[in-house]
């Protein structure tokens, strides 16, 4: 990030970029206005029906609310513990085995687990651990298709691969000389763990724990699909039930405010534990020899952990294919509802990906120019307008929209646009964080040269900035597309027979025990997301080819 130091040179540069700066400020104001109006309306809704101090506190400290928070905290703690244990142990095992292909397979699988929609993952988990699942019979009466352990397993499915990837990178980034010293002094497995592995893992544990705890504590779709009752729930699921089934809007508003307070508190508490992902380049070209590599106990424990990873992460993905019943499953494609949901999801995801990436580019541009000009207040305002949506869970946002707009318009008529808006707003914090470092670097590199050559505005963006960012743009478009395609949060409130997305339709099939059709739809969603990544890759590959030629001719024109 750039420091807030105003210099004459940056002042002169800044004079040329007023439009991009102002566009970003306007976008920031719009984002903040949407978020704040929803929050305010919820406050009024809760305050209008309750006497704030007495009834508000009654709701917060009601036995049922405390039970919900207790249940969510217990579930989130278990999920965090198991994800960390599996992720760290597997990273250690994988690094100790030092097998190139094994590492490649495990890391690719873990990436796949990170992009699988939660509804599809839930289906895969049931496919493995459910009563008729691949391993369901092993647990006998222990396993039920729904309940705490299913939710914990699903959360571990998403979070253990994240831990594994981060921890593996951290191990790779340990200085090569650590391993040299360890080999020279013939350190034992325990000494290697204490001196090298633990020092790689230690800085990750608090940031990862707080992140995973927050994700599991605010989990919605997994708990909705696999929770199986009031014993396993989160505040988000309770808000959904309050709106959708009980239609108790003041209660929903009060629970939403409570959820925002808890989320803000958790984020504030975890603020000192920032996760620094290290670049795994330190050991390139050096042989990492470990004295415990051939140890039979180490070998056995490593393979046991890798087998656990395989069962937890890989098996649910395999189960989707394994359980596929083509004869009844294929009937899915004859249904008009499926095709309607398909086109709705595609339109939503494409629009959401394109618009959110455009807004992110505008915001990053603007923020960069504001930093250059030393405008701390507006820079912080733009940061706030984006990060605000990390504090507000999607279902709280949907509830707020519901309360805010229901008196003015028919919500089901504008459901498409509401879901689109939610998808854009909730993917923005992630997209800006991924895109910002590269875009800021490219802007800083190109500033002087492009001004000297007179290449500015859209022309500069399309000929210089865009080709330099093709990889990052492919990634954020893919992530944003996948995020929207797999989202099962806002749609649960606004979805109906006339407006369905693929995950919503999957949820409906899942709830109706339409197993073979649900399996087929789950697999279709998985393949569709994968194809979308390939498609964005292909588009940017073509774009880069075209622009490499274009830039060569441009440079030739100037050198002549």
């Amino acid at each position, binding site marked *: 990030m750039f420091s807030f130091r105003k210099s004459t040179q940056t002042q002169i540069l800044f004079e040329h970029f007023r439009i991009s700066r102002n566009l970003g400020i306007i976008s920031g104001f719009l984002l903040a206005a949407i978020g704040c109006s929803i929050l305010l309306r919820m406050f009024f809704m809760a305050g209008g029906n309750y006497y704030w101090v007495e009834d508000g506190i009654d709701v917060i400290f009601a036995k049922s609310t405390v039970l919900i928070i207790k249940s969510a905290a217990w579930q989130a703690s278990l999920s965090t513990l198991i994800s960390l244990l599996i992720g760290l142990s597997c990273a250690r095992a994988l690094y100790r085995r030092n097998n190139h292909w094994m590492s490649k397979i495990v890391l690719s699988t873990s990436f796949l687990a990170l992009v699988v929609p939660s509804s599809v993952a839930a289906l895969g988990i049931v496919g493995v651990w459910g009563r008729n699942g691949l391993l369901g019979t092993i647990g006998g009466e222990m396993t039920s298709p729904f309940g705490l352990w299913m939710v914990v397993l699903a959360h571990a499915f998403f979070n253990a691969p994240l831990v594994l990837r981060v921890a593996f990178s951290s191990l790779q980034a340990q200085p090569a000389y650590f391993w*040299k010293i360890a080999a*020279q002094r*013939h350190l034992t497995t325990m000494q290697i763990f204490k*001196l090298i592995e633990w020092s790689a893992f230690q800085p990750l544990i608090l940031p990862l724990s707080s992140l995973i705890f927050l994700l599991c504590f605010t989990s919605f779709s997994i708990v909705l699909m696999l929770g199986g009752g009031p014993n396993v729930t989160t505040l988000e699921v309770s808000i959904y039930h309050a709106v959708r089934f009980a239609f108790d809007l003041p209660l929903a508003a009060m629970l939403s405010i409570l959820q925002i307070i808890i989320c803000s508190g958790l984020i504030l508490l975890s603020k000192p534990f920032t996760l620094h992902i290290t670049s795994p380049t330190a050991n390139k*070209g050096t042989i990492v*020899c470990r*004295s415990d590599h051939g140890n039979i106990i180490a070998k056995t424990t490593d393979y046991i952990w890798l087998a656990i990873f395989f069962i937890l992460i890989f098996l649910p993905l395999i189960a989707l294919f394994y359980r596929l019943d083509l004869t009844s499953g294929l009937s899915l494609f004859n249904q008009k509802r499926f095709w309607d949901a398909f086109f709705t999801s595609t339109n939503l995801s494409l629009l959401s990906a394109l618009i959110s990436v455009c807004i992110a580019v505008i915001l990053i541009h603007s923020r960069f120019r504001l930093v250059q000009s030393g405008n701390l207040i507006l820079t912080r305002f733009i940061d706030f307008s984006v990060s605000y949506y990390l504090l507000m869970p999607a279902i709280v946002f949907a509830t707020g929209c519901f309360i805010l707009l229901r008196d003015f318009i028919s919500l089901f008529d504008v459901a498409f646009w509401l879901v689109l808006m939610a998808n854009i707003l909730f993917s923005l914090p992630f997209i800006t964080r991924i895109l910002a470092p590269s875009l800021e670097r490219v802007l800083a590199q190109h500033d002087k040269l492009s001004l000297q050559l007179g290449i500015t505005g859209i022309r500069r963006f399309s000929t210089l900035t865009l080709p330099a960012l093709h990889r990052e743009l492919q990634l954020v478009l893919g992530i944003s597309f996948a995020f929207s395609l797999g989202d099962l949060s806002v749609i649960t409130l606004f979805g109906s027979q006339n407006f369905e997305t693929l995950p919503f339709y999957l949820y409906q099939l899942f709830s109706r025990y339409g197993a073979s059709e649900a399996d087929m739809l789950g697999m279709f969603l998985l393949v569709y997301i994968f194809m979308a990544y390939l498609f964005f890759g292909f588009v940017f590959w073509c774009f880069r080819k075209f622009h490499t030629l274009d830039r060569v001719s441009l440079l030739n024109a100037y050198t002549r």
Partner: protein
Amino acid sequence: MLILDRLAYNWPGSMTQVINLKADLGQLIVISGPSGIGKSTLFDVIAGFHKPSSGNIMWGDKNLLVEPPWLRPISVMFQSDNFFPHLSIRKNLMLGVKNSKKLIERMHYYMNFLEVYDLLNRQPESLSGGELQRVSLIHALMREMPILMLDEPFSALDLDMVEKSSQLIKEDMQINKSIHLIISHQDITPFLAADQIIELS
């Protein structure tokens, strides 16, 4: 006897170096040559951290190339990075050595002799370059291996300390009959008499 038999190695962006050497017990071999010629890489090859392209490293009738680094009878003092930064000097020195009374006495003797005794409880990052170099030499000597490889052991030391360190190396050669391979840019002949000099080019 240590034999490097047509030992060839290379590293990215380099020519292949081929080394032949026969060193008897108690001998001192000085390796010299310009920077970037592969002197430290040669130590890495002998210690087992870099794969040679061909040749053999024989120790008696044993080919060391088939042995992992921890089973080679070698103690290395690297040019830098000899210690775990999160452990005290005392803990670093005791790592990978047998915790015996005799060894602790020797450690105290070395520490006193090289005037670094007061540093035992300090962290490596708080030591100066010269102090680190003296402690690294002590650690290499403490392991009592038949082959010692010292990469630039005197580069950060003043003349007085070079003399003292050389005296410890001579003692080790006489008492333990160990082979010392030293990489040095400085002229060390006033302090240590080399039995062989290998000039890499």
